[in-house]
């Protein structure tokens, strides 16, 4: 029996075949993958997982593909870093950083979701894949498509800064610059996906694409020695990542791979784009769309598709949500770099900033086993910190100048 049972509407429960569809024809609710857990349970075990490939595909039994991984075979299984220094600074005894800044091949967690989406798109017979993106997603789709020999289209707003697309052009995708703003590209791509049946990874392939995020939960549990953390701190853009981490933890519990899950799943946003965290703060079960204005561009989704479900997952888990200013984002990036040697993009600054707040508020306690999800590499958003990192120490090319600057005697030591 196949491990995928159907696509199922998250609202009305109507089931559909596992094709390239994403919206319920009946109620227009979003679809997600329903699995044959009884069947999966027969074949899965900790030992089998541990014997699998050194990538996220060691959890293939819980991913929505029928055959083997044909795209992105090296994605995932990134380091789980015991953050002694940052933990000591914040007052946490057991803090870990799930470090997706070194994900393969494009240094963000998007490599997980794209590997699943493109493997599935190929299984469904697509030779062309597409996405609408202003950053990390375009990067990952273009790179994976190049390696897999798939045609690739990336749609971007015409008002996007040129530098944002240069990283994509190296992979030679077809970059389509739409004369308009974010909202115009958003609407157009939705219509193209609806009318022309292209494999848009985050539109009609989204039910499969989103499942790739579960691997962050699976890896967390395995890398912690088959334990679930007490707290997870997760950055939120569409809200999908948080909901899938929660789903992944519960799948592991259901399949007996972990004894208990008491994890509180906490969401992090930047103040300049915080529709979900604001709804949480105001005690609402719905969010109000916003126009993003933050340096955390990779989280700048003002009308998030999974916002409602993220609120629900956080409530179910007993977690919290919070937000940080752009200044706190930069402080968070610096703090992580200077304590753990990990350079995160702005989303990482959001996560660290909110982690700091949750500890200060007493929501996360000293003894809590805590995992912070760092989802992208700082080299992608260097402009955010360029004015906050100081300047090099300038000296003359002479030993005297060097020793004077560093106040150094013959036996070494000293400082600038």
């Amino acid at each position: 029996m196949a491990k995928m049972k159907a696509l199922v509407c998250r609202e009305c429960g109507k089931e559909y075949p596992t094709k390239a569809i994403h919206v319920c024809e009946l109620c227009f609710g979003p679809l997600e993958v329903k699995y044959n857990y009884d069947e999966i349970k027969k074949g899965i075990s900790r030992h089998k997982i541990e014997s699998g490939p050194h990538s996220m595909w060691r959890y293939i039994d819980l991913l929505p593909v029928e055959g083997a991984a044909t795209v992105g075979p090296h994605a995932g299984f990134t380091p789980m870093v015991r953050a002694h220094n940052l933990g000591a600074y914040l007052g946490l005894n057991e803090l870990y950083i799930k470090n997706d800044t070194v994900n393969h091949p494009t240094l963000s967690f998007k490599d997980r979701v794209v590997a699943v989406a493109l493997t599935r798109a190929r299984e469904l017979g697509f030779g062309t894949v597409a996405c609408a993106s202003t950053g990390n997603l375009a990067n990952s789709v273009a790179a994976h498509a190049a390696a897999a020999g798939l045609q690739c289209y990336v749609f971007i707003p015409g008002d996007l800064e040129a530098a944002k697309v240069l990283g994509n052009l190296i992979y030679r995708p077809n970059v389509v610059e739409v004369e308009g703003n974010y909202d115009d590209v958003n609407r157009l791509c939705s219509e193209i996906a609806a009318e022309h049946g292209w494999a848009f990874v985050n539109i009609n392939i989204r039910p499969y694409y989103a499942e790739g995020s579960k691997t962050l939960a699976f890896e967390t549990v395995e890398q912690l020695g088959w334990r679930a953390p007490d707290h997870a701190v997760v950055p939120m853009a569409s809200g999908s990542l948080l909901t899938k981490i929660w789903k992944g933890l519960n799948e592991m519990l259901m399949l007996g791979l972990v004894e208990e899950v008491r994890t509180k799943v906490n969401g992090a946003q930047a103040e300049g784009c915080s529709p979900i965290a604001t709804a949480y703060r105001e005690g609402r079960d719905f969010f109000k769309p916003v126009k993003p204005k933050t340096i955390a561009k990779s989280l700048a989704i003002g009308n998030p598709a999974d916002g409602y479900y993220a609120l629900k997952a956080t409530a179910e888990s007993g977690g919290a949500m919070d937000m940080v200013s752009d200044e706190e984002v930069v402080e968070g990036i610096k703090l992580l770099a200077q304590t753990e040697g990990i350079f995160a993009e702005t989303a990482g600054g959001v996560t660290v900033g909110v982690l700091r707040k949750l500890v200060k508020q007493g929501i996360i306690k000293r003894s809590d086993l805590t995992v912070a999800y760092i989802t992208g590499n700082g080299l992608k958003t260097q402009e955010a910190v360029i004015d906050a990192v100081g300047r090099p120490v300038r000296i003359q090319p002479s030993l005297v100048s060097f020793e004077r600057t560093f106040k150094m005697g013959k036996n070494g030591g000293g400082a600038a």
Partner: protein
Amino acid sequence: MASLRFHIRFPEDKIKEPIIYQIGHEYKVVTNVRRADVRETTGWMDVELTGETAEIERAVEGLRKKGVLVDPIELNVVE
């Protein structure tokens, strides 16, 4: 003929207005509400508009002019 699906949101001051009815009369589109949540201070609807593509686009513009927010059914897909 095309059928496109939208998520529309009503600000508080527009909740009492029969906007869906008006759009069906002012433009050559068939409106079909599939899911909705209308409360005292806010409201949203998932709606399908069927008609010629250009007419649907005019109807969407008409909705916006009436003060409601119109998004694709998927909300934001640019990531």
